[in-house]
């Protein structure tokens, strides 16, 4: 079975982000970028399925700007077989556009399973996987913390409010990956160097026939109101006294 994994290049999760001074967008100039952590988990899961002999080929795909290959290089260094970028120029790709472009890739590659991160840590939308499943009319499982492929089914344990739930999907299907699915392997430097030499196929977004124009207009980006640091108390007794005075203890 072939697996398609979608990876996004996002601001590194350790880097603090700021709004541009005019509030028009997020300041991304000179900011360190990396593979979206949830997508890295998706790549790792595909690799583990291949190591178990369930999967024969892993194709990683990234969409958008000219810099997207960075995330694909990371996926190649981790061990995916092929990498594909869908070139869309400078258009900011919203989840629906991502789903439409991925649908075009799925129709071309015909994978038995699509793995994506549950959300990208920049836009925090958490929508692309579900939208893709809708467009393909495939079953979906979101927030996977365990994935097994048994015959023609994916058995997925998913994280839900108050616990976990296990569902079984007839393949082909889309699965979105949560934090506890796995811990991605460490990429060794030689692998990263070798990945730089591997070919990345390019597909022009305009040739997919997908409409990737934005539907949502971003009017403003701003920092939230900062909380003011309060006071330090000297003892538990003083803390209780302050809490009683503030009225939050009923």
């Amino acid at each position, binding site marked *: 079975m072939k697996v398609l994994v979608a990876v996004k290049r996002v601001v590194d999760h350790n880097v603090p982000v700021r709004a541009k001074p005019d509030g028009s967008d997020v300041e991304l100039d000179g900011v360190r970028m990396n593979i979206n952590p949830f997508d890295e988990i998706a790549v790792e899961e595909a690799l583990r399925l291949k190591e178990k002999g369930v999967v024969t080929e892993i194709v990683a795909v990234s969409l958008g700007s000219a810099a997207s290959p960075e995330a694909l290089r990371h996926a190649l260094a981790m061990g995916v077989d092929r990498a594909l970028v869908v070139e869309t120029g400078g258009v900011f790709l919203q989840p629906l556009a991502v789903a439409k472009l991925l649908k075009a890739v799925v129709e071309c590659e015909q994978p038995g399973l699509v793995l994506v991160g549950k959300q990208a840590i920049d836009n925090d939308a*958490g929508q692309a996987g579900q*939208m893709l499943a809708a467009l393909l009319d495939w079953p979906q499982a979101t927030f996977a913390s365990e994935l097994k492929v048994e015959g023609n089914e994916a058995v997925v344990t998913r994280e839900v409010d108050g*616990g976990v739930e296990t569902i079984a999907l007839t393949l082909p299907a889309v699965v979105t990956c949560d934090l506890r699915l796995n811990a991605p392997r460490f990429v060794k430097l030689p692998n990263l160097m070798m990945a730089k030499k591997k070919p990345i196929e390019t597909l022009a977004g305009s040739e997919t026939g997908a409409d990737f124009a934005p539907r949502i*207009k971003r009017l403003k980006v701003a920092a939230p109101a900062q909380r003011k640091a*309060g006071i330090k*108390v000297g003892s*538990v007794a003083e803390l*209780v006294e302050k809490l009683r005075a503030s009225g939050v203890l009923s």
Partner: protein
Amino acid sequence: MSVLILADHDGRQLKAATRRAIGAAKAWSAPIHVLVVGSATASVAEQAAKLDGVAKVLRVDAAHLAHPLAADVANIIKSLAGDFQVILAPHTTLAKDVLPRVAGLLDVAMIADAVEITAPSTYVRPIYAGNLLATVESSDAIQVVTVRATSFPAAAEAASAAAIESLAAPAADTRVRWVSESRNASDRPELASARVVVAGGRSFGERFEELLGPLADKLGGAIGATRAAVDAGFAPNEQQVGQTGTVVAPELYIAAGISGAQQHLAGMKDSQVIVAINHDPDAAIFQVADFGLVADLFDAVPQLTKALEQ
């Protein structure tokens, strides 16, 4: 045109987050219809019908919906969508699973986790784990939106109940099968809507529940945990507060042994009163805490529990 709200419930009780989604829907000044999907949901539908602002409750009840799956719920919403200009739900697991699928089926964009509705198609939503707030405007004819429940007032009880209309359920999507679930049984309030949250970090170790449990029970609160405490196995996953866990905004948040990582702060900084107990006076949590106590949590937490008993 009207607003359709996908109700979240556990089969017996309408979740508090749904009441708050109804509160958020008042931004449109349009009739609000609440959709209750499940099996044997008569009492949930009655609870929804009694809420202020609800014009009608639509009930889709079938045995195969006892554990609602995304494909089935999305198909139901799609079949109703022509009558609605807004499809809205609280940002809970159910809606995070279902609403993007609905948006995909309808070929419209979706707004996730709105914390403010500034105009009928303009929203404020957190990005980058709440480190920034984006104001966005959607141009689609049907607005599909999830709202952060803690940011909106809960709908009150109404004087009279709205009508409940039962609709036939479409056939189940047989390509998805519910297998099993494991939910943590607890008498404590639900973390996302609790009035008080008592949260701990990894340093509690094996004594996590032993030390925090009595304090939470004394305050009638829920227990929260950092990702590190969850990853180390000291607290169950559903207690995780943060960007990738539950976002809370209780009246009182007590953070014990929590240093204040960005991810965790993103999940709790909208709490009304924050108390931090940490032995490190430079911990980031003190930057957001109203009351900070520099102390060893193994001494301070039991002392606090005891002091509250008096």
